[in-house]
């Protein structure tokens, strides 16, 4: 996984503070935390000499930009819709015990985090995820049950 140092290497390293951070390293950390986006660095975005690095950074950081608020990413090309994560997710079980909790189609969709659409897992209601919020815990229910590592959490 990408770390802050790798991102820093691709930045202008001028500590110009235009992004509002005190240094380029601080900006790299903010990028990683998805507090800021690559576009928040004006020199990187506008100066042609940084074009290559700008694109590289966009590529590196983009999966995280596509992630949900809990950092959950679904690698759709790997997922084949077995539904293991849907049925194993403790929040799904608690919110829909006789539907997905029992291995069936959802009966009560309102608070489901994971469900299968067109053969691929979709994440929604992520604020319900146990990895989110004040009392968050590092639940791995959907990760360890996946046969193809299609679910990943980025930090």
């Amino acid at each position, binding site marked *: 996984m990408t770390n802050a140092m790798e991102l820093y290497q691709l930045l202008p390293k001028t500590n110009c503070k235009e992004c509002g951070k005190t240094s380029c390293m601080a900006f790299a950390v903010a990028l990683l935390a998805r507090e800021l986006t690559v576009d928040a660095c004006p020199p990187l975005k506008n100066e042609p000499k940084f074009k290559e690095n700008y694109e590289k950074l966009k590529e590196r950081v983009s999966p995280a930009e596509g992630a949900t608020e809990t950092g959950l990413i679904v690698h759709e090309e790997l997922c084949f819709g077995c*539904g293991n994560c849907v049925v194993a997710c403790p929040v799904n079980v608690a919110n829909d015990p006789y539907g997905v909790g*029992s291995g069936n189609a959802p009966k009560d969709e309102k608070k489901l985090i994971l469900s299968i659409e067109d053969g691929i897992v979709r994440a929604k209601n992520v604020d319900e995820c146990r990895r989110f919020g004040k009392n968050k815990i590092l639940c791995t229910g959907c990760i360890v049950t996946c046969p193809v590592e299609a679910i990943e959490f980025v930090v």
Partner: protein
Amino acid sequence: MEKEYYVCTGCGLLCEDIETELEKRAISKVYTACRVGVAHMKENPGTAKFWVEGKNTDEATAIGKAAALLKAAKNPLIFGLDNSTNEAQKKAIELAKKLNATLDDSSSFSFGPLMAALLQKKFKTCSLDEVRDKADVSVFWGADPSDSHPRQLSKFAYFPRGKEKQRGWEEERTAIAIDIRKTHTAKICGNEFYQVPLGGDAEFMEALIAGLSGKLPKTSYKYPPKKLLELANLLKAAKFGVIFIGQDLLYSLETLAPLFRLMDTLNEKAKGDFFLIPLLEAYNMRGFNENLFEETGFVNRVKFEAGSVKHGPEYSVVESLKAKAVDAALIIGSDPLANLPYSIIKELLEIPLITIDPCETLTSKKAQVSIRSGVSGVEAGGSALRIDGVRVAFKPVFESKCPSDEEILFKIMEAF
């Protein structure tokens, strides 16, 4: 609003909880089904199509030509039907009787002997619903349901809450994979993956039997006895154990005897009962085996002859073609040109072929008569038997002009 559920006939699990959205008489969205199910349900639906000698024609011409070819044959073969409804299968049995035909399906080179033993009650079997409600130990042997029956673990065998399994898979269930390679299913089983060398399954069974009986489990390939004993103890502690058998195990065993001995030993030594469920792949192979068994006492490889029925390897699709014993073939919902060895295919290309299938296949392209039938559960209704023998009835998702296999067979018989 009450939800409307449909049945997916993509594999032998016959998931009956599928929701769909329609757009312009085609399925545009599928909920809860796996990727294979989605591909299956979205399979280009459309109108009926009829070909004779590769040219588009009308229904009457195609049906008439099919009937004529079958009538002209002395020893016709009817093959396939694992992807047809119970109703179509029964119709095909009737047709085979009328034609004195040889009748066989793909179980001929896969699950046939195991299904025969199952229907003769040589071991205990149970339903998938019982597995969900009660099973604490599930063994996948030479079976990779993650790839062949994707929802098998989430719907039944490992992850769901069941009546007597309310505390979740981590606490109350153990999944074990025994295989020659680390399959997707083996990956989920984590530490309970036992890798057996190629062709080493029978010996592994004997060693397990020894371990269960308090003897030292030995194998010629020196499988660590400690690990084998751990597995034996795990199985012994099971209150409700199930062994799911895949095609790969069947190809590795010369005879099923060690498997039956293992089942007997497990039922003798384990805390609870042990059941066996074959992971049949085609959506209604179980139906073919049971429907034919009910009629003849055999699950496949039969030849009807003036009111009597003969059975044996010589009536298998492979041997009857090899021996040039059949002189025309009606292939229903199967693609032998893709699935059989090349050398057998050559024999098939020597005789007139008639195909009934929802899609164009290698076989249909070579057929004298080819008829496109409706996709079961999408364009045509009927019923089928799930891998555990539970009957599942289904209605089509939308009205289609595409005839079902059953209707086509009916019309062919009428045209005689």
